[in-house]
Structures are given as C-alpha cells and as structure tokens.
C-alpha cells in the first residue's frame, strides 16, 4: 500500500530538482517540516491533497479516479487498464446523451500516459514499472468526492456537453480592434520596462505571494502603470518565462534578455504564445472553434466543467486568463479581437503579423535636443533602444519614447564600456538633427572626469592598513580632490582617513562609499580587486539582505536533505525510528529485516504498534503473533505493499 512511509522513501530517492518542483507545484508551506517524513505527511494531508486535486483538469482527475478504482483490487494499474476503465465509464453517457462532444482523442493512450505522469510528478500517484497506484490518502479523498458534491469517476470521464459557450451579436469590430491594438502595444511596452527595471534591480516577492509594496510601486512607476496593474504584467511576463523567481527575487531570464531584441509584434507573439500554451487544452479547442463569442460568464461555466473542483481558485484562474487576454489585446471588452481570433485559430505568428500591421511602425532615427532629451518619433528599433538605454534614462514610453541623458547615465554607460567618442558617434548616427552643444558638452565632460576618484575594497593583507575595520580605500592622483573629500561635511559619516598622500580609508564597504561619494557629485568609479572598473547596482534600504533571502521551497529541500544525511551518517537508527514512528501512526504493515546473532537476515511482515525500551512491538501478520524485536538488530524496513509487489 502507498502510505507516508513509502512516499518518504520515494522522496529520499528523488533528485533535488524534482523534489523542489514538487514542493512548488503542491504549494507546500515549509512551516514545521523538519525531515522527509514530515514532508510526506504534509503531502498526504487531506487539505493538501484536495488543494492539489482542485488544480487538475477533469481529464487528469478521471485518470486518477480510474487508477483509484482499479486499485480497489490491490493491484497497480497499467495504462491499458486505465484506458479501459475510462472507456467503460464513458460508454453509458455517450449512449444516453448523443449530443455530447466527441473527444475520444483525449482518452488516447498518449494523453492518459501524460496525465498519469503529471499526477505522479505531483506525488498523487506512485509509479513502478509503468503501473500506477494511488497514495492511500489520495484514493480516500477521491472516493469522498461525491459526498462533497463533486463528480464521481464516471462523471469525470464523461464527454463534454455541446454548446458550452454561446455566441453573442457582433459589435463594432473596428473599435474593438483599435482598443485591442492599444492594449497589446501598451502591454508590450510596459513589459519591456518591467524587464529593464528588474534588470536594474530585482524585485522581492513576499512569502504570502505578490510583490512587496515598495517594490510594486517601483515597478509600477517604471512601467508607467497603476499599482493594481502590476500583477497582470508580471504574470504575463512570468508565463512567457521572461522573468523568474529565484531566492524570493524576481529577475530577468536569458529568454527575457533575448525577447528584448525582438520587434514589438514578435514580442507580443511570444507573450500571446505563452498565454495560449497555458490555456487548458479543452478550453483552447472550444475557443478556437467559436471565435465570435463573448468570454463573459459562459467562459466561467466552461472552465468550471473542465475544472470541477476548482472552486475559488478556479474563479481566480478564469479571472486571470480573461484579464491577461484583455491586457494582451487578445480580447477587447471580452470579445476576441481580429488578431485574437487568429491567435486561437492560426497561432501566434499569424496573430503577431496581424498586429504588426496595426502597431505604429518602428523608427531608427531620433531627435536629440538642447534640453538633454532624446525623442524617438515612434517605437524605436529594439537594438537601438537597447543601446540608447545604456546611455540615457527612459523618461516616458508610449507610441513615441523619450529618454534623458545625464551625467549619471553617461557614467553608467562608460562603466559599461562606452567612451565619449563612441557615445557621440552613436548619437550622431541616430540623430535626425545632429548633436546639440549641451549634450556634447555633457558627454565629453562626464567622460573626461569619470574615474578621477576610485574606490575599491581594502585588500585583506595590506601592511599600510593596520587600522582596524578598514573595509574600503579611495584613491586618486589628484591630491587636492582627496583633500576636499576629507573635509566634505556630507561625507563625514564615511569616516574617511588619510592613509597615504593619494589614499583615504573608510570603515564602510566599497559600495556604500561609492554611492555616498557619487551622490555628493564627485567623479568616482568603483573597482574590483584587480583594479578593473565595475558597475554597481544601488540597493534599497535593507537591500543587502535581499539577495541572501532564501527561496522557501529551496530552503525546505536543503533542510530535509541535511537532516536525512545527518540521520544516516550518525546511525541508521534515527532514520529507522522515524520510519517506525510513521508506520505506527499510519497503522501500515511493513517488512522488517532483522540481523540474527549469526549474521543471517530474517524478514518479518509486521504491523508495528509501538516502540519502547529499545524494542519494536508489533503483530506478525504471517504468524499472527505479537513480537518484540530489538531495534539494534533491525537493518532495514520497507512498506509491505511495495516490497510485496517486488516479489
């Protein structure tokens, strides 16, 4: 039988990445979980199982129900047996209701295998040698569904009723497409800014979900959207794998970086593609056959059919899909736009091409102005935009974009490898009207002054740094400049002390010193230990703690692995004790291997009842007698059901 004990054994044999993925997928809260047994129990907890089942679509649930049904006989189910069970359940429904939608393909072998594998990954089914068994708690949960008003196995396997979605009258399609175009264009633009901002500084996710408020405000400001619009943009970007969460921080992925060099229409196509991929296959096929319909409440009822246990979470998911469809211009006012229809019927490439004709065309020339702004009279070619962003800050972005060049932005560019000559050459190439004198002056001056002061971390061994707590050193050839630094009131808190004519020391870290001096308008650059200039990211208050903040799921994996390794290293007794404790609590039969005094191994099929005084007490199921076995002689313990099958 499949119990917490066998699940714990399975967890032990899983790769860390698999374990991590399963914990994330099952949304297990690390809370008081100390070892694999605790984790197995958490995974088999009633609420946790219901939570996992609720997220599954009707067809996957049908596969689990079939496995559960077949497991009544105690034997694991093959894919063929599962398919047969599903057919068996379906046939009465098809006979009594000929109007149902034929979807035999969904029960094809490949589909069943895929769904069973998914349930296995979610730790709802156990697979061995291509056959499946449900965990006992999962089976019990599914069997209780009808009491909860949820569908039975036959109902889960039943075909979809026809006409789930009804058509509505056509409205003004031109107006709808215009609105969809505005939204599609705006969404792509705001996701570009989201990525740029996360590139500049990752954003922290709260444990309870969602961005921390200051982070959300920062990101909203960068995207020029309202605070409440941030989650949709983040969800759209995450779904397309442009951003990901690591260690509790949202950051840009490699895919995100390459997405930035695509055209606006191609960028949109990638976002829409991800949306489409995430759409459950059933819903997708329904939508693609009926494009002239509203996605209002009927979409909710369709989703409710496909996700029978979805509940509030389903409602949320429907809202998320429809919200993101609106955000991406796939729909406008809940009706599919022309490119949205193409997306559902012909895919993202065709839809992207349709939007390409509706979006403002890209430009590759800009106006560089006296007020230090650079304005592109249309969406700037992505390659040029990417380079311009390294030289100037984006001020506004819509159909046209505005950038502002400043001493700080030029310094940033120079740190990134640009020079005054390369910046001016680039601006000269893309400017429609040459480079105004103030811009040229700014670039030349900033470049000339850049790095006159340098700061680096104090070397660990430096005879001159005998003072305690020296963490960074500022150096310059311009001794007068260093003198100014020494007396500067705004830098007093850095405690700069002269340690040589051309060097000042501080007890603060390099980055802190860099930003303080930079904010005081001195031309400073940061160096690494080899003297190479490096670019620094400014941290928010409390920032230094952010990168070290662990991803809770990763932390849990680490914790249970350490505990398991420690248990096994010290003695196998601790691991054994936890196995016994779990089997006693679950009242499951186990196969205990005992080493006899002559070294010979003996196996007992035992239902353990307790541990006391260094001895295991239990009922021998074969001999039907009570036994007490010395714990010190037990060399192995396996769940009986699994071991029985192996025989």
């Amino acid at each position, binding site marked *: 039988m499949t119990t917490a004990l066998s699940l714990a054994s399975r967890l032990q044999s899983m790769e860390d990445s698999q374990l991590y993925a399963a914990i994330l997928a099952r949304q297990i809260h690390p809370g008081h979980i100390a070892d694999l047994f605790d984790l197995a129990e958490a995974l088999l907890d009633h609420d946790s199982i219901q939570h996992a089942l609720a997220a599954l679509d009707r067809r996957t649930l049908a596969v689990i129900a079939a496995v559960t049904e077949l497991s009544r006989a105690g034997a694991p189910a093959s894919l063929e047996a599962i398919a047969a069970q599903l057919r068996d359940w379906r046939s009465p429904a098809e006979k009594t209701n000929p109007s149902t939608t034929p979807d035999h393909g969904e029960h094809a072998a490949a589909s069943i295998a895929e769904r069973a594998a998914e349930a296995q990954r979610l730790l709802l089914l156990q697979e061995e040698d291509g056959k499946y068994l449900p965990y006992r708690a999962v089976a019990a949960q599914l069997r209780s569904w009808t009491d909860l008003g949820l569908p039975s196995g036959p109902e889960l396997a039943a075909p979809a009723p026809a006409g789930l979605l009804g058509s509505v009258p056509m409205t003004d399609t031109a107006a709808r497409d215009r609105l969809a175009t505005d939204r599609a264009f705006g969404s792509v633009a705001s996701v570009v800014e989201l990525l740029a901002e996360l590139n500049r500084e990752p954003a922290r996710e709260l444990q309870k979900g969602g961005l921390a408020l200051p982070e959300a405000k920062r990101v909203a400001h960068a995207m020029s959207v309202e605070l409440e619009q941030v989650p949709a943009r983040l969800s759209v970007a995450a779904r397309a794998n442009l951003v990901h969460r690591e260690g509790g921080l949202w950051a840009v992925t490699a895919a995100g970086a390459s997405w930035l060099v695509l055209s606006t229409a191609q960028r949109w196509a990638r976002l829409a593609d991800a949306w489409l991929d995430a759409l459950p296959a059933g819903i997708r096929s329904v939508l693609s056959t009926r494009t002239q319909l509203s996605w209002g409440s009927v979409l909710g009822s369709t989703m409710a059919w496909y996700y029978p246990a979805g509940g509030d979470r389903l409602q949320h998911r429907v809202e998320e899909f429809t919200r993101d469809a609106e955000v991406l211009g796939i729909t406008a006012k809940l009706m599919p736009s022309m490119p949205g229809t193409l997306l559902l019927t012909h895919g993202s490439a065709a839809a992207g091409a349709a939007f390409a004709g509706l979006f*403002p065309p890209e430009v590759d020339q800009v*106006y560089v*102005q*006296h*007020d230090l702004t650079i304005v592109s009279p249309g969406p700037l070619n992505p390659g040029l935009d990417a380079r311009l962003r390294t030289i100037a800050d984006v001020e506004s972005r819509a*159909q046209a974009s505005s950038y502002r060049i400043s001493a700080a932005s030029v310094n940033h560019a120079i740190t990134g490898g640009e020079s005054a000559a390369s910046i001016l050459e680039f601006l000269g190439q893309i400017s429609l009207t040459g480079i105004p004198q103030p811009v040229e002056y700014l670039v030349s001056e900033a470049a000339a002054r850049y790095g006159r002061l340098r700061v680096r971390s104090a070397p660990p061994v430096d005879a001159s740094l005998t003072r305690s707590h020296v963490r960074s050193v500022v150096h310059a050839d311009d001794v*007068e400049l260093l003198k100014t630094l020494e007396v*500067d009131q*705004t830098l007093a808190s850095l405690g700069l002390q002269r340690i040589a004519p051309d060097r000042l020391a501080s007890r603060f870290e390099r980055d802190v010193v860099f930003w303080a001096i930079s904010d005081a*308008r001195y031309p400073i650059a940061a160096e690494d230990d080899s003297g190479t200039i490096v670019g620094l990211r400014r941290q928010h208050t409390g920032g230094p703690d952010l990168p070290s903040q662990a991803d809770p799921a990763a932390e849990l994996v680490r914790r249970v692995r350490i505990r398991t390794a420690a248990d096994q290293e010290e003695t196998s007794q601790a691991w054994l004790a936890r196995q016994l404790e779990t089997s006693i609590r679950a009242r499951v039969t186990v196969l205990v291997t005992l080493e006899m005094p002559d070294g010979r191994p003996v196996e007992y099929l035992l239902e353990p009842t307790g541990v006391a005084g260094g001895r295991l007490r239990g009922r021998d199921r074969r001999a039907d007698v009570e036994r007490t076995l010395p714990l010190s002689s037990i060399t192995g313990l396996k769940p009986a059901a699994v071991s029985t099958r192996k025989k």
Partner: protein
Amino acid sequence: MTDGPLIVQSDRTVLLEVAHPQAADARHDLAVFAELERAPEHIHTYRITRLGLWNARAAGHSAKDMLATLERYSKFAIPQSVSIDIAETVARYGRLVIARTADGALTLHSEDFAVLTEVAKGKRIAPLLSEHPNPGTYTVEPWARGALKQELVKLGWPAEDQAGYTPGTPHPMALIQDDWALRDYQNKAIGNFFAGGSGVVVLPCGAGKTLVGAGAMARAKTNTLILVTNTISARQWRDELSRRTTLTPEEIGEYSGLVKEVRPVTIATYQILTAKRKGEYAHLALLDAMDWGLVIYDEVHLLPAPVFKLTAELQARRRLGLTATLVREDGREGDVFSLIGPKRFDAPWKEIEAQGFISPAECFEVRIDLPQSERLAYAAAADDERYRLAATAPAKLGVVKQLVDRHPGERILVIGQYLDQIDELADALHAPKLTGATPVDERERLYQAFRVGEEKVLVVSKVANFSVDLPEATVAIQVSGSFGSRQEEAQRLGRLLRPKESGLSANFYTLVARDTVDQDFAQNRQRFLAEQGYSYTILDAHALDQRV
C-alpha cells in the same frame, strides 16, 4: 493614419514634430484644446488636460472638432482611450449652467437631473445652494457664484456661467493710435476675450500685454480696476495708459502703499489689497468703491491666494487675466480657470519671436571652477550654507567683469539674490545697484537712466524680476537666483525680450559654480527655458577669452 506631424499618446500627451511641413497648421489647431507643456527645438509636447478641453469647449469647440484635428494630423492611430476620454470630458462642460432669473436670482440648472442631484448633494456644494424650485434647478446663494464654480471644477463638472456681468459705470475712453497700431494677435486676443466674457490672455513678456489690457478697456468703456504686482508696475501701467489712450492723468488713480487714489481707472497692487489690519483685509472697500465694469489682473500667475478669495466675490464683473505663463508654482491653475475664466488666447514665445515682435535671446551657462580654497570652504560647509556659498562664490566676480567687457556699449543687467554680493558687484563694476531697499523714486530714476543710456550697467536684486519694462537691456548676467524657480527664469529672460531699437540680439548668461548645488538649481531653471525653445550653450569660464 496620415503620417502627419502629431503623435497622440495614450498618456494624453501629443508630440509635434516641428520640422514637419504641416507643423504650423497642426500647432494652430491643436493649441485650441491642448496645453503646450514643452517646446524644445524639434519636438513640442502638448498635454490634453481637463482644463484644456473645457477651455476649448468654452470657446465653442466640440469634441468632434478636436478629434478631427487629431485624426487629421496624427502620424499613428489615435489611442482609443484618448478618443473616449476627450468625448467624455468635453461632454461634462456645460451640462450645468449658472444663469440669472428675470428677478435677478442666480440659479444652477441642468437637464441632466442625475448629475445635478449628484453635485447638489456634495458636502461643499450643498451650503452654496438655497432652494430647489424644480427638479432641474437649484437657487444659488447670491454670494456663492465664484465658490460654486470653483467647487464644480474640482468635482469635474464645470458650469457654464451665463449669469452675465454688470456693465459698470460707463467711462468713455479710446486708444490713440497715431504712430502705432495694435498688432493682429493683440486684436485677436481682445476679440476672443470679449467673445468669451471673462478669461485669461497668455502672451510672452515683451509681446504687449499692457496694450491688450488698454485695448480691452477701450472696448469696454467702463470704470476699470487694474490689479498689478507692485508699485513700479502700477506706474508703468499709468504711464502707458496716459500715452496710448485718451485717459488723462486725472482719470487714473494709484492705490498702493504710498498713494490711495480711487478714480474711474484705478491701479492697485496685490499687496495693498491683501494687507490686513487687526486680522481683517483693510482695503476691501476698494472692490466696491466704484461700479467697476472691468477688472484686469496683471501677471495672473502670481495672483496671491487671498485675491482668489476676493475674486470669488467679483464674479458679476468682467475679468481679464494677463500673464506670460499659466503655470503656477502653487498648482492653482484650476482656480484661475474657475474664478478669472478660461484661457482666451495663447501664443508660444517662439512664434511671437518669429513674427519679429520680441527679440531673440541667446542663452549661455558659464561654468566656473572654484579655486581650491573656495572648493574646500564649500565642502566643509553644512548643507544649508552650501547654496549661498556656491551662489556667491568670489570666483564669479571676475567672470562677471569679463562678460561685461564682452558687451561694450550695451545695456547690461547684472542680477543677484544676495545683498552682500550685489554690493560687491556694484563696487567692482562701478555700477548703481537697485534692491528692495531702494526707494521707489530712486528706482524709477535709475530705470529711466538705464533706458536712455546714461547708465549702461545696473546691478539688481529680485525686485527687478517682475513687471519692469527695460526694453533696451540686451544682456543679462544672472549671478545667483532663488532655488530653481521656473517662473523666475522666465521673468528674467523676459527682461531681455522686449523689442530692441538697436537691433542687437539679447544675451542671457547664467553663472554656475561647477560641481555644487548651484549647478543643480541652474539646471532646473534652464530646463524650463530649453523647453520653451531657447537653446543653451554651455561655456567654461576659463575658456571665455577663446570664445567669440
């Protein structure tokens, strides 16, 4: 899409490509309903605001006209959100109407009962209404016409004021246009004002706002109260009216701290109007002293907050606001709209300049490296001392002299913020100084000497910022100024923009201590001018000799 000069953006900004062949036409049509926000040389930025749309609606333009303008000139498709927003916002104007019944009672009425009911329930509106004779009408308290308009604008339901004006006591006057004539745009501004009832005319310094005022008076032919920023300005108005109209000195009174004359045309300062004695406004009686048919507000962007309150009670009189900019540092543009009236005429500086009525100015920022001793003193100073140290750095003195020498024979204003610095500059340049402590008569004498060329250089404090007509100044050297005020920068440049008989172009220098807060503040001020289309050249003080 027409590939036109406009880019209409979803954030309600409209960009105008200046070099586009249709740019002039597009600008002309767009200015009707969008506010010019920035006008650097290549791309002008307009913003579609509620006030702008209501201003346009008040002038008789429909949402359909405005959308047609955008469609006609737009390069890309108009974002639908903008189209909808324009239609909805414009539709809000005039749904409520303030009118007067045959027996003289003020009413607020609307055919949209829902809107009327909604606003009438407002906590701040209900006390302004007295009776509700029928579902579409409320009676307005006699004193509440201005306050009601203010509150309705805040709620987003601007009322159309059809309650009319008291004609005022007639007082005949006319312009004497023997050797001059009102320019076309001045006539247009006057025409627009009278067509609209009350409102604001926006013209740059030097474009003849005083003459627009005089023209309006000549058309109204009624007792007129003119409110100005200071005594010097009052006297310039008096002189100009005496010279350009049939009014005699006896018909024009000055009501200021120095003189209290009430005559058919009375020029009063904001300061005297808001002066309090024992907690009460001491000169309120002036507002009712004569039956004014016209009230003119000079430099309406400087109108002090208490004057708004007083103006709320002057709604029965026709009001004309004059200003170079509607931008108020206190953000009370909505009060100008509701209490003085909508904008009736606007022209960007560069356009007037292109017509040759104001002289072009070249702007320079001169960056000065502080010597090490001054640099050390600056670094060692506390934050609150730094601006003063940077602004008054002795290193600036030599540069001022150099610049004065570069413009021999020209009329030069040297402008400073700090009295010590002004003293030093006056001594070093052997030039007279003019500060708040200079008596009014002495100020007038010095200005006059400067105008006629007896004095070539004047060292002035901020008293010279506003409303002083110094047409022959061709050079201004700003040594220090207050913290980043956009208004101040515009005013200072305005001193130089008056038409020059000499034909010389104007030069405006700002001296900035490098790597100090001075540079930050200077950048702020310059940005405003650059956005007005004045290009800046940055010079290094140490290289001044090498530049022509």
